[in-house]
Structures are given as structure tokens and as C-alpha cells.
């Protein structure tokens, strides 16, 4: 499935873009599949202390399904305040 990713903070620098088209080799991808594929394509992301994936503005867990038209965002460790 082809998805569009939003990236922020250091993730934006790792991807060299705040928005990225990305292919996951599955028709029913999960968040964990996206993580694996991302880490294979951008090994730098594994050096982060952690990172989350958000689906439609909510933190997602590993088994959550990604569907077409979801808004997917890569959330590196937050540091507001």
C-alpha cells in the first residue's frame, strides 16, 4: 500500500522532508509493519530514544491497521513546554 507520511522535528531531518510518499509491501499494513519498513529505509530512526506513530491525530499501537486515507505521522520524542 502506498501511504503518505508526515514527519516532524528530528524525523523531518532524517527523511529530509516533512511529507513523504512511502510504500509498505502489504495490502493490510499495521503500524509495526510500517515501523519495520521505515527502519530498513532510514536506519537513523533507530538511533532515536523512541518514536511513535499517529493515525488520524491519535497515538497508535503496533497492531493498529493502517488504511488508505489515514493521516499518518511520525512522532519523535516530544519536548514541548
Amino acid at each position, binding site marked *: 500500500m502506498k501511504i503518505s507520511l*508526515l514527519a*516532524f*522535528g*528530528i524525523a*523531518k*531531518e532524517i527523511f529530509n522532508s516533512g511529507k513523504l510518499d512511502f510504500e509498505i509491501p502489504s495490502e493490510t499494513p499495521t503500524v509495526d509493519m510500517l515501523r519495520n519498513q521505515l527502519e530498513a529505509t532510514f536506519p537513523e530512526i533507530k*538511533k*532515536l*530514544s523512541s518514536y511513535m506513530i*499517529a493515525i488520524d*491525530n*491519535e*497515538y497508535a499501537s503496533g497492531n493498529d491497521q493502517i488504511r488508505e486515507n489515514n493521516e499518518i*505521522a511520525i*512522532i*519523535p*520524542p*516530544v*519536548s*514541548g*513546554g
Partner: protein
Amino acid sequence: MIDVKISGFPLDEAACIAKATDPACGGMLVFRGIVRNKTKSKKIVRLEYECYPSMALKELKKIANDVIRLWDVKNVVIHHRTGILNISEIAVIIVVSAPHRQAAFEGCQYAIDTLKKTVPIWKKEVFDDGEEWVSAHA
């Protein structure tokens, strides 16, 4: 009443206090998060904040609603700034008002502690000789 906002412009503290002013509330806490001049021992030149606006607003609303749900608090205002901030500028203002002070103290502490953990806002520290996204690496 809750009021959350993310702004690229200097925050208006008087407006935040006015929004949380309530004749039923005898205690009001105003927390300001301010840009410090150093981190550990390194001198900071400025901070650069970035955010995921739609999700950040959603998470800020959750925090404000939780404060009202978990404590006897009537009003929560959280305004966060983004963009380039210089030393001593205000990055975040949280105002919590409650009938009694204890709930206001505890609710305000919860709000800033949770904001730092859950709200998708990021800051980069800029030094004389480089820069670093805060908390990105262990």
C-alpha cells in the same frame, strides 16, 4: 471552561488570566514556561519550536478536560508558542482556576507534566557551535 491555543506570536498572559477569571474560583495558578539561557552547562542562543498543530490541539484539549475531570477545577487555559524563541521569552502559559487552591496547584502541575510527555511539540536548542533536538536521543 477550557481554552487551548498554539500560536506563532508572543503569548498574551493578561488574556489567559482573563479567560480563567471566575467568581466561583478562589484560587488561580499561572504557570509560565520560559526559555532558559543554558542546558546543563551549555549556553543556549535560542530555541526553535515546531508542532503538529491538529494533533497538538487535540492533546492539549485532552489534558485540559482531564484536569477538570480529575480535580475540582473550573477553568483551564493552555497557550503554547511555536517558532523561534529567544532567552526569557515565554514558551507556554497554563492558567488553572478552582474554588480552592489545592486543586489549582495539583491540576496545574499535572497539566505541564503531561504536556511535556504527550503533546506533539518539539524544541531544538541552538548553541554557538551547533544545534540539537531536545530528548531525541537517549
